[in-house]
């Protein structure tokens, strides 16, 4: 599941600290990145305003929401994207589901970034016995298949929204830790850091004034790409029934609930599936563009 946060992504050579100026305008010059940003903006807005946009209550079971045989209804003027197996409006469930998918995506990924950066910096900068133990533990975590580990954790902890986010964070920090670790190590070997050491700067000063600012671009890139991984993992866990629990909607569990009807009512798989794909794709596109924009040595490689 850790799709783009892997060896595919080269360790960024330590570049100038991110200043922000120019980055946004260079990002906006890339069509795919703009497309991704638009998709993200659309999902964020629809999640934020779901109670006002959604045509119906996501949990209301409509008397006329099922066919006479009790099957879900296809898209119509009344139910734009059709209804699900219980006669609920699919569009309303998708809009409310966007909230859960986004909250989990952002929270889980934020937590994974914090854990991963902390582990990576401690192991890469301070090293010592603690650093060695941390990196050995990271190696150990790499030997687990991410999804199986997440399923085990979710089964142990009993899923709720925050538990799902926690589970995903506990699985996803590993990649971040590895990247931050190797970058911190190569940074602390470099001359300008060595010069600071010679000049007698304290370790804390070097860490906060030099090492951390140089890690920003890496963290931003992996933070963006990681949301995509997180969204996919949440959808998969929910699809397997160990993620967000019905009646709360998430894009993954809408498919989980309606799986038995997918032959007769394929839209119940198609629409939520398209939503997951678009959101994950958007974060991948923006993250990839950020990687190029923030890394001067990649310029013009396109």
């Amino acid at each position, binding site marked *: 599941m850790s799709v783009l946060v892997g060896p595919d992504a080269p360790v960024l050579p330590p570049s100038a600290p991110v200043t922000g100026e120019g980055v946004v305008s260079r990002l906006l010059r890339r069509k795919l990145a703009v497309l991704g940003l638009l998709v993200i903006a659309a999902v964020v807005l629809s999640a934020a305003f779901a109670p006002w946009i959604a045509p119906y209550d996501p949990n209301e079971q409509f008397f006329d929401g099922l066919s006479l045989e009790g099957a879900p209804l296809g898209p119509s003027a009344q139910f734009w994207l059709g209804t699900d197996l219980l006669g609920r409006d699919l569009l309303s469930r998708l809009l409310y589901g966007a909230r859960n998918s986004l909250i989990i995506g952002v929270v889980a990924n934020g937590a994974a970034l914090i854990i991963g950066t902390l582990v990576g910096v401690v192991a890469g900068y301070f090293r010592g016995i603690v650093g060695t133990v941390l990196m050995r533990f990271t190696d*150990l975590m790499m030997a687990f298949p*991410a999804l199986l580990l997440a399923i*085990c954790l979710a089964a142990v902890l009993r899923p709720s929204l925050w538990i799902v986010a926690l589970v995903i964070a506990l699985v996803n920090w590993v990649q971040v830790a590895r990247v931050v670790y190797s970058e911190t190590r190569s940074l602390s070997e470099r001359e300008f850091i060595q010069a600071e050491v010679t000049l007698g700067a304290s370790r804390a000063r070097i860490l906060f004034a030099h090492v951390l600012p140089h890690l920003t671009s890496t963290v931003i890139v992996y933070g963006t790409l990681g949301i995509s991984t997180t969204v996919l993992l949440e959808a998969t866990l929910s699809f397997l029934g160990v993620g967000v629990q019905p009646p709360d909607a998430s894009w993954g569990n809408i*498919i989980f609930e309606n799986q038995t009807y997918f032959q007769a009512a394929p839209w119940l798989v198609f629409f939520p599936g398209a939503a997951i794909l678009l959101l994950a794709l958007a974060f*991948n596109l923006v993250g990839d563009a950020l990687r190029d924009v923030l890394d001067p040595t990649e310029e013009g*490689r396109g």
Partner: protein
Amino acid sequence: MATYLLRRLFQAALILLGVSLVTFALLYLLPADPARQIAGRTASAAQVANIRTQLGLDQPFFVQYARYLGNLLQGDLGRSYLQRSQVSDLILARLPASLLLMVAAIACELALGLTMGLLAAVRRGRASDHALMVTSFVTVSAPQFVVGLLLLYVFAVRLGWFPIGGYGTFSHLVLPALTLGILGAGWYARMMRSSMVDVLRQDYIRTARAKGLKRWTILLRHAFPNAILPIIAMIGIDIGLFMSGIVVVESVFGWPGIGQLAWQAIQRVDLPIIMGVTLVSAVAIVLGNLLADLLAPFVDPRIKLQ
């Protein structure tokens, strides 16, 4: 070479020991009570307590773990709580199906991914390069269960070209292998492209061009063998992705492999099976990484094992 191999095997064994400890600790913390589950709903408290003692579930953590590990070293993964059979037998019975799927999926992703990456690198900067790279982004962003269900709908339900899930013939294999392969193909396409772009910039390629060699001779005979190196290093990670993927794909297609076994066990909280499958997956990942490192010097003689 021999000392290197010994050291790597020792490291692998240590990692697997850690994996077994983590899995065991996780499942030890599981709130669901397996003794209650085995006894059934009608059992009395005394019966449940009896089963608990029988299974050793009333022992302290490290006693339980030590016993588990002792059995593990003898190849005994314990007994399933609900199916009353040896976990190792259950896994062995289902392993061939998963291995078959793995071979087919890897063939699929290599064929698709390397071709896409190669073409994109050759046409770098042109429209077809952009189209291929956007495609590869789409495939790595698509959730596997959605891809699986849609392939099933279009090619099995609608067109009737393939059976709707199951196991046995070649046509049963196509859709699940494709579902797993599509994700990996996007991965490989991106890696292959960037690796190929790097190689194509090097002097020896310019020399080959200057000698007047044919374009495809240069690409396939001179550039490809060098570009493939970083991809070999991916074997372990690819196996990790695959082990996650089969849980989803095997349950969508009703493929009787260890992914489906794990999934059924998770729903029934059958701990020994979950631990068994996780351990087998970890072994596969660790071996994959080892294999990647051992293969590297054969592909590139400049790399020395140390």
